[in-house]
C-alpha cells in the first residue's frame, strides 16, 4: 500500500512538523507531539482508557491504554537501516507495552492496538480493576454508560478468579450538596481530583490510604460544593460519583438526548437534554471548544425542573367577571386583537424577554410595528459572572434582542414604567416575563385595562392578566439565540409542551395575523430565512447552517476565562485540548 495519507493536520499556518507512524500496519503522518492515543483515535483505532481526558493533565495511572509499541532499531555504524515493503525502516517491537495517553508519537514509531500482547495486557488491567469492584450495577446510576462495564465486555475475562474477600470501602458518602461518592466503585483514575484542582481551582478531593485500600475522599473540613462540581460526575468513568439530583430517577438507557443550549446565562453552554417521554431527567454539557469546552455550571445544568412543573399553564384563558376561564386558542388570540387594535400606539407597551429565541423576537418586532408602538423592550438581567464560564448577563439572548429589536435591552423600561404608573397604558403585552418579579408594581399593573401574559407558568402576573396565553419552555422549542460572545446557536425540541400550550413563536405569529398583519411563515426554518434576509449579521445563513456548534455572527470583546486558561495549558503541552 502506498504510504501515508496525511492525518487531519492542525489549521495553524506554519506547516506542522509531521512524523511517520505505523498504526496496525498502516503508515500515517501525524504532527510531532501528538499523543499516541490521539493518533490512534484519528486512525479510527480507539484505545480504551480511563484516566486520560483531553482537557486534563495525563498522569497515566490507570494503565488501560497500554499498547504494543516499537521503534526502528539504531543501526550499527556503517549499517544501512533495514526497510519494510513500504520502504519505511523496519520496526523493532518492544517486549513490554507502553501507555498511549502520556507518550507522544515519534518518527518511524509503530503501534499495535490489536495485537495479542495488547489484548493480553488489557485483559490483565481489567482483571485487576474488577478484583474489588462491587456487584452494584443493578443499583448503580452509571450502568448503561459505564466505561468499566463496556471495557469489561470488550476486553475482560467474563469470570472472576478472585476467591478472597473484597476490600470494603465507604459507600453512599455525602461529599457535597450535589455529588455523592461510592468509594467501592472508584477505580482511582483521579480525573475528578484533576478537574477540581486544574479547572475549578478548588482542590478538595484526594486519595488516602495505599494499595488496594486507596480511597477517594474530600479533605477534612472541605466539601465538593463549587458551582462546577457536577462535571466530576460526567467525567468519572464509573459510578463512583453520581448526581444527587439524578440519583435513582431514571436508568440511562431509557433517555434520549437532544442538542440544546443552556438558558442559565449569556454563555449559552452547549448541552444535551436527556428525557424519557415528555419528562426531562438531566442535562449534560456537550463539547464546544468555542463556548464551554466540555463543562457547564451546576446552576445552569439543574435549571430544568420548572419545565416538568405542575404549575405549567396548559390552556389559554380569558378573564370573565374576575375569573379566568379556559377558552380556545382562536378566541384567546381574537380577544388580544380586539383589545389592541384601534388603541393608539403610545397607549400600548410590549414587554418581551431576552430569554426568547431570535425567531420569537422577530415576531415581537412585527407585532410592535403593526400596533404602531415604540414601547417595546426586554427585561435585562444583570448578575454576577465568575472566572470560569458563568457570564454576568443572566439572559441567554440579550445580543439577539439587541440585534432584532434594535435597541439596548432595558433602555425603554423606565419610560414604560412611567407611563404605566401614570395610567397611560391601555394594553400591555407581557411576553415571557413575570412582571411582578421584574420590578413592576402590582398597583400599576392593576391600572391596565388589558394586560396580556404569555408565559409558561401560572404566576402572580398571569393571575392579574385579562388574557393568559400558555407558551412553551426552552426544551420544548426549536430556535436560535446569540450568546454573549456573539455566537449564533441553535436549540432543538427535547419534549412536548403540556396540554394545549403551543409554540411561542406560533402564538406570536397568530397575534400578528389577528392584528392585521400577514405572512406565510409556517416553520421555524422559514422564520429564520426571513430573519436572515432582514438582519445583516445573519446574511447568508439558514437555520440548518447554524449547525450543532453554532457560528460567530457578532464581534464582542467578551473573553471566556476558562477557555483562555485551557488555551494556555494546551500551548504549554499540559493538556491535549
Amino acid at each position, binding site marked *: 500500500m502506498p504510504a501515508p495519507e496525511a492525518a487531519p493536520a492542525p489549521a495553524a499556518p506554519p506547516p506542522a512538523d509531521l512524523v511517520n507512524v505505523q498504526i496496525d500496519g498502516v503508515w500515517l503522518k501525524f504532527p510531532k507531539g501528538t499523543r499516541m492515543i490521539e493518533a490512534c483515535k484519528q486512525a479510527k483505532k480507539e484505545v480504551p482508557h480511563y484516566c486520560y481526558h483531553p482537557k486534563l493533565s495525563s498522569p497515566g495511572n490507570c494503565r488501560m491504554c497500554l499498547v504494543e509499541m516499537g521503534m526502528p532499531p539504531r543501526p550499527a555504524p556503517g549499517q544501512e537501516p533495514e526497510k519494510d515493503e513500504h520502504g519505511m525502516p523496519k520496526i523493532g517491537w518492544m517486549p513490554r507495552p507502553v501507555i498511549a495517553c502520556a507518550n507522544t508519537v515519534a518518527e518511524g514509531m509503530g503501534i499495535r492496538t490489536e495485537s495479542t500482547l495488547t489484548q493480553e495486557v488489557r485483559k490483565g488491567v481489567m482483571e485487576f480493576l474488577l478484583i474489588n469492584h462491587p456487584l452494584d450495577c443493578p*443499583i448503580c446510576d452509571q450502568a448503561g454508560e459505564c466505561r468499566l462495564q463496556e471495557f469489561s465486555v470488550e476486553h475482560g475475562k467474563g469470570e472472576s478468579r478472585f476467591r478472597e*474477600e473484597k476490600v470494603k470501602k465507604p459507600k453512599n458518602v455525602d461529599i457535597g450538596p450535589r455529588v455523592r461518592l461510592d468509594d467501592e466503585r472508584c477505580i482511582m483514575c483521579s480525573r475528578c481530583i484533576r478537574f477540581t484542582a486544574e479547572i475549578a481551582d478548588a482542590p478538595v478531593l484526594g486519595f488516602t490510604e495505599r494499595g488496594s485500600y486507596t480511597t477517594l475522599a474530600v479533605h477534612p473540613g472541605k466539601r465538593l460544593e463549587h458551582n462546577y462540581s457536577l462535571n466530576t460526575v460526567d467525567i468519572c468513568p464509573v459510578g463512583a460519583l453520581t448526581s444527587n439530583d439524578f*440519583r435513582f430517577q431514571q436508568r440511562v438507557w431509557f433517555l434520549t438526548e437532544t442538542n440544546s443550549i443552556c438558558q442559565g446565562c449569556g454563555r449559552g453552554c452547549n448541552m444535551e437534554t436527556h428525557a424519557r417521554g415528555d419528562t426531562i431527567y438531566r442535562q449534560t454539557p456537550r463539547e464546544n471548544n468555542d463556548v464551554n469546552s466540555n463543562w457547564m455550571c451546576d446552576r445552569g445544568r439543574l435549571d430544568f425542573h420548572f419545565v416538568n412543573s405542575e404549575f405549567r399553564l396548559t390552556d389559554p384563558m380569558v378573564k370573565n367577571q374576575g375569573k379566568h376561564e379556559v377558552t380556545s386558542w382562536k378566541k384567546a388570540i381574537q380577544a388580544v386583537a380586539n383589545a389592541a387594535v384601534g388603541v393608539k400606539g403610545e397607549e400600548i407597551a410590549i414587554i418581551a424577554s431576552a430569554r426568547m429565541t431570535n425567531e420569537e423576537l422577530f415576531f415581537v418586532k412585527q407585532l410592535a410595528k403593526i400596533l404602531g408602538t415604540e414601547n417595546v423592550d426586554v427585561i435585562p438581567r444583570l448578575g454576577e459572572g465568575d472566572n470560569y464560564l458563568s457570564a454576568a448577563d443572566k439572559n441567554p439572548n440579550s445580543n439577539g434582542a439587541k440585534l432584532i429589536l434594535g435597541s439596548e435591552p432595558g433602555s425603554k423600561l423606565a419610560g414604560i414604567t412611567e407611563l404605566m404608573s401614570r395610567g397611560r397604558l391601555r394594553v400591555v403585552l407581557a411576553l415571557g416575563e413575570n412582571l411582578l418579579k421584574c420590578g413592576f408594581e402590582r398597583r400599576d399593573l392593576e391600572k391596565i385595562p388589558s394586560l396580556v401574559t404569555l408565559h409558561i407558568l401560572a404566576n402572580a402576573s398571569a393571575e392579574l392578566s385579562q388574557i393568559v396565553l400558555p407558551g412553551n419552555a426552552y426544551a420544548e422549542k426549536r430556535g436560535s439565540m446569540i450568546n454573549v460572545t456573539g455566537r449564533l446557536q441553535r436549540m432543538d425540541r427535547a419534549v412536548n409542551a403540556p396540554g394545549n400550550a403551543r409554540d411561542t413563536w406560533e402564538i406570536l405569529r397568530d397575534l400578528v395575523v389577528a392584528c392585521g398583519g400577514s405572512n406565510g411563515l409556517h416553520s421555524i426554518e422559514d422564520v429564520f430565512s426571513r430573519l436572515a434576509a432582514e438582519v445583516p449579521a445573519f446574511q447568508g445563513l439558514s437555520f440548518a447552517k447554524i449547525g450543532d456548534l453554532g457560528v460567530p455572527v457578532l464581534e464582542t470583546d467578551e473573553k471566556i476565562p476558562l477557555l483562555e486558561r485551557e488555551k494556555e495549558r494546551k500551548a504549554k503541552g499540559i493538556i491535549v485540548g
Partner: protein
Amino acid sequence: MAIITVQRPKLAWHEKAFISTLFKGLKITLSHALRTFLQIAGKKPKVTMEYPEQKWDDQLPDYYRGAPALVTDEHERERCVSCQLCEFICPPKAITITPGEIPSDDPWAKVEKRPKEFEIDMIRCIYCGMCEEVCPEQAIFLRKDYAITGLSRKEMVHDKKRLYEIGGQRVGLVNKWNELK
C-alpha cells in the same frame, strides 16, 4: 400471476350422493364410542374436566409460565432493586417501575434502592418470561397463577402489593447483599 387450472376429481355415484362419506363418518364415531366404552369398562376413563370447578393445578410443570410476580427472600427483604432491566426487556412494555431510595434508617439501607411502585399490566403481559430471565437479582418469577381476571382495565394492573402477594417468599436464592459482597 400465473393461473393454474385444477382438474376436478371424478366422483363415483355413491360419492356424489354422500353415501360412502356417511359411512366413513360413522366408522370414526363408532370407533371412539367403542374406545371410551372399553376405557370405562377397564376403569381408566379419559373425560373432560369441568373447569373451573375442577382444576389441574397440581399437575402444572415447574417451568409453567403464569403471571409474573415479585418475591421476597428469607429475611423478608424485597429482592427487587428497581434496576428496570425487566421494564426495558419486556416486549409488550407491560412493566412500569417508579424507582425509590431506601431510607438510611432502614435495616437494608445498604441496598440503597428498591421500587417505590411496580406495576405489571396483565392485559399487556404475554407471559414470555423475559423479565424473569433478565433479572440480575432473582426478584421476579413467573408463577403458576394463570386465571388473571378483572372487571376493569385498572383491576388488570398488578401493583407492587399484589405482585408480592402472588410472588410470596423464595428461599435459597443467591444472596449477594450479605456481608461478604
